[in-house]
């Protein structure tokens, strides 16, 4: 995509149209502000700051999803590792290998265990569609130097002893320097509540584990697809016209003779349908 296309997409996302304000309201504010000098009402918090003008670098960053699937919880007791219930920590040279042993654990348990290891790593649970439940999919840190020190591990990568990708004790993982001092947040997928919008989902609602798993609706007419979708107890949250790509807007329910091009998970038992007047190529 070209630069101006990207900027146009961003422009379309502008959430706030202009708001008319009366001259009287502006005047009240302006007069009130300029009256504050003699009046010594302290505005202490916002007085000129001593801190440098350069704002603290707030760089949040996301990282590649390397892990798929839900892992059954199991705790393997091995003598060579400190094995708490939810996470396992193993030293390897100057690195610490962290593995999620119990992907269904409350993130508070992970936080507590990271803290116990002296790491300022927090896990935040966000609603995701079923196949991503229990997965870590985004990492943030204060700056890129900190972020570069973290590496998500693939299932089977740097496992302990003879464990491999099929062992529950060697699935989601993170490699972090032993002396890591950064502050990091990891987004962790949790089950969504009814009606709660997914923050992370499969590409299609027909993929394995999603609400319409295996359902053949692509290029069926809306009239033919809807009963199939409803038979799964799934509602259509919104319709998008494929021709609006890449910035979709909700459209009204299309005529029954339109065609379904795809479905995207939206919330538990709710999907978004992509439609058009002709079949998808």
């Amino acid at each position, binding site marked *: 995509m070209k630069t101006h296309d990207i*900027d146009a997409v961003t422009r379309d996302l502008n959430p706030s149209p202009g*708001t008319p304000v009366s001259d009287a309201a502006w005047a009240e*504010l*302006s007069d009130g502000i300029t009256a504050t000098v003699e009046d010594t009402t302290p505005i202490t918090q916002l007085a000129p700051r001593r801190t440098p003008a350069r704002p603290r670098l707030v760089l949040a960053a996301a990282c590649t999803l390397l892990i798929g699937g839900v892992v059954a919880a199991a705790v393997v007791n091995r003598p060579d590792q400190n094995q708490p219930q939810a996470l396992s920590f193993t030293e390897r040279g100057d690195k610490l290998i962290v593995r999620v042993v119990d992907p269904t654990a409350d993130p508070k348990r992970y936080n507590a265990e990271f803290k116990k290891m002296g790491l300022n790593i927090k896990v935040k649970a966000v609603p995701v569609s079923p196949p991503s439940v229990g997965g870590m999919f985004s990492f943030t840190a204060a700056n890129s130097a900190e972020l570069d020190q973290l590496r998500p591990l693939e299932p089977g990568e740097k496992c302990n002893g003879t464990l491999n990708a099929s062992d529950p004790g060697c699935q989601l993982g993170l490699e972090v320097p032993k002396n890591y001092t950064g502050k990091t947040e990891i987004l962790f997928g949790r089950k969504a509540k009814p009606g709660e919008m997914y923050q992370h989902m499969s590409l299609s609602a027909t993929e394995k584990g999603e609400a319409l798993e295996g359902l053949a609706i692509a290029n069926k007419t809306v009239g033919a697809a809807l009963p199939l979708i409803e038979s799964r107890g799934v509602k259509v949250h919104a319709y998008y016209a494929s021709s609006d790509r890449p910035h979709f807007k909700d459209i009204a329910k299309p005529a029954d003779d339109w065609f379904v091009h795809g479905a995207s998970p939206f919330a538990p038992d709710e999907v978004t349908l992509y439609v058009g007047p002709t079949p998808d190529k």
Partner: protein
Amino acid sequence: MGDEPRDRRRERFEQVFAANREAVLGYLLRRTGNRHDAADLLADTFLVAWRRLDDVPPGDQTRPWLYGVARRVLANHVRGEGRRHALADRLRNELAESDEPPRTLTDNSPAAIAFRCLPEQDRELLSLVAWEELDTAQIAITLGITRNAVRVRLHRARKRFAKLLTAPLANRCLVPLKEEASHEDA
């Protein structure tokens, strides 16, 4: 404020205020989605400008400087340091009465989802370009970083956003950051 007569000071403030109040309000509304808060944040921003009037740069640097202040005011607000100003009462009431429902980036179009997936820094950069229509030099003033850093970061932000947008149908919040290590401030 020195020896400058109060009237001249006031006149200068009123010029700055009149020329930028709508833009700064827009900046705040786009980022809070709460009209009550936006009125108080606007008051906070211009209180800083009034107290630091001698530091307010002239010309086309004024507005990005104000955005920089608004950005810090907003950050304080997010940390729970919000205040109510009586002097913003009228503005707050008018904003609250507006028929337009406050919109934030919560819709679920793929572009909006992709945008939300971006790091905060990327979102702010892209917004400053597309919503506030600032150029590189102005963004450098708002963010308090060098122009070169703006260029480098903007390039990366656009690349990451493009990558998320071109994922078919849904987006997965997957943004590799491997190229981050270069010396953008050099």
